């Protein structure tokens, strides 16, 4: 059976060249980068090279502005808690959007328990953040604004430059979660005016278990882990060197290959979306039609439920994802789909395909040829399907 993996936002394979770069740091260069002897020299070099490569990827001014973490969730947690804690004397107000990842949402909710006021900005039907609402919410009390670079669930790219100008007019810090955009969009922290930026390794074919936080020089941030003083005294603990080297290599490859790959993926994405919307009635695109991540195909089909579609796709060898409550641990439909105004039953019928390097045009054709029959079969079974549709898709 044909196997098609289209769940890249959830997990990606490690690029073989990345794995090759990592291997020596398990078996040869095992010295602690903090030691003085010769065994540690290669390790230290590997660490700083990786830092340089990650800094280059997002055009950081200095490599010291890159701090390695264990994952993107940690980076988001650290940036938001660390900036809030260090600056709370200046004000206790934080602003974010209603479509952030849970690693931003739940930290903000935690801050509320600690006495901070948090504003969750609305988005339009495409998921673009409301800049007028941002202007209204910003006050002299606001110390931090957190807006994602792009949303992985609906693909929408946020207007970070505009957000930054507004935020900095009130002297607040801007944190940006770039996890979903990794490896797909060119990010320039200097040009776009970003104070802190969450970076993910696995989202650009690097290993899991490592991430990074860009922190612009001069940004007031509390340390995350106290100990031996690694990561400039901000995050102590012996470095995950093979992981960090892997992330560095992934950043280098991304920088060199992203432009072409993003073009290829965008073409596949557009063909995919067009094919599904043309072949299946009562089908809709989730997220923005053009301001969209190259790998993101988020769609919804009326009268049926996402998990049933996923199970059928899985039986045909296709791995995808859904915004339906029935696939979530919480039994609530995705907050992102609710924030763009979808009703519960519409959110339940959502499917998310995220493309990657190994996906070909044939893969797209295969899924586009499969889905109409799956939808037809489930609609025939559904009590919600209108009579005139029962015979046709």
């Amino acid at each position, binding site marked *: 059976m044909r196997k098609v993996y289209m769940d890249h936002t959830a997990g990606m394979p490690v690029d073989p060249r990345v794995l090759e770069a990592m291997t020596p740091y398990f078996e040869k260069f095992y010295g602690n980068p903090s030691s003085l002897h010769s065994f540690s020299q290669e390790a230290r070099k590997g660490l700083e090279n990786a830092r340089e490569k990650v800094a280059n990827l997002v055009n950081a001014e200095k490599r010291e502005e890159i701090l390695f973490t264990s994952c993107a969730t940690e980076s988001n947690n650290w940036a938001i808690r660390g900036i809030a804690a260090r600056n709370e004397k200046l004000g206790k107000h934080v602003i974010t959007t209603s479509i952030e990842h849970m690693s931003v949402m739940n930290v903000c909710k935690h801050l509320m328990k600690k006495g901070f006021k948090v504003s969750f900005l609305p988005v339009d039907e495409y998921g673009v953040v409301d800049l007028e609402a941002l202007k209204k919410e910003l006050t002299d009390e606001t110390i931090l604004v957190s807006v994602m670079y792009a949303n992985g669930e609906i693909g929408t790219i946020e207007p970070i430059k505009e957000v930054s100008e507004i935020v900095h007019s009130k002297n607040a810090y801007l944190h940006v979660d770039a996890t979903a955009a990794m490896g797909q969009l060119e990010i320039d922290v200097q040009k776009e005016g970003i104070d802190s930026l969450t970076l993910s390794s696995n989202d650009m074919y690097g290993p899991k278990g490592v991430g990074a936080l860009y922190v612009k020089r001069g940004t007031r941030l509390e340390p995350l882990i106290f100990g031996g003083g690694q990561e400039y005294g901000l995050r102590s603990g012996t470095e995950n060197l093979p992981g960090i080297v892997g992330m560095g290599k992934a950043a280098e490859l991304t920088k060199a290959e992203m432009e072409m790959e993003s073009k290829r993926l965008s073409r596949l994405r557009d063909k995919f979306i067009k094919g599904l919307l043309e072949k299946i009635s009562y089908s809709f695109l989730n997220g923005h039609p053009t301001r969209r991540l190259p790998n993101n195909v988020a769609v919804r089909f009326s009268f049926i439920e996402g998990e*049933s579609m996923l*199970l059928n796709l899985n039986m045909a060898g296709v791995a995808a994802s859904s915004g339906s409550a029935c696939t979530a641990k919480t*039994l609530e439909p995705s907050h992102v789909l609710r924030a763009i105004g979808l009703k519960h039953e519409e959110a339940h019928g959502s499917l998310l395909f995220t493309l990657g390097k190994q996906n070909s045009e044939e893969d797209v054709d295969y899924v586009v040829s499969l889905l109409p029959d799956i939808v037809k079969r489930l609609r025939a079974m*559904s*009590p919600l399907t209108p009579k005139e549709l029962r015979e046709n898709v």
Partner: protein
Amino acid sequence: MYSEKVMEHFRNPRNVGEIPNADGVGTVGNPVCGDMMTIYIKVKDNRIKDIKFKTFGCGAAVATSSMITELAKGKTLEDALKITRKDVADSLGGLPPIKMHCSNLAADALHEAINDYHKKQEAKTK
């Protein structure tokens, strides 16, 4: 995540459809929750002669609907009323804990259909 038996019923659901002029119809759940099912029964000599279902929902919702039609077919109405949610889940080799509450509605839908049948019969005799 699902047992082989659940997947088997999901792949080949039994008794999908509607019964025109059904003797009893039961609908439970709603699309907001993500699960909704309707069960149709035809009754003869106090037994469930025919039973069909329509379901909107996840794999567990489809499998439990299919399973209950098999469990109930041919049973007397009294015996059919005794079928519990647990019986349905057990017959399927178990359900994931999170699905036990939300998607295991088939027994309720069957009971609704039988109640509907009784109500209709009462209305006829009045």
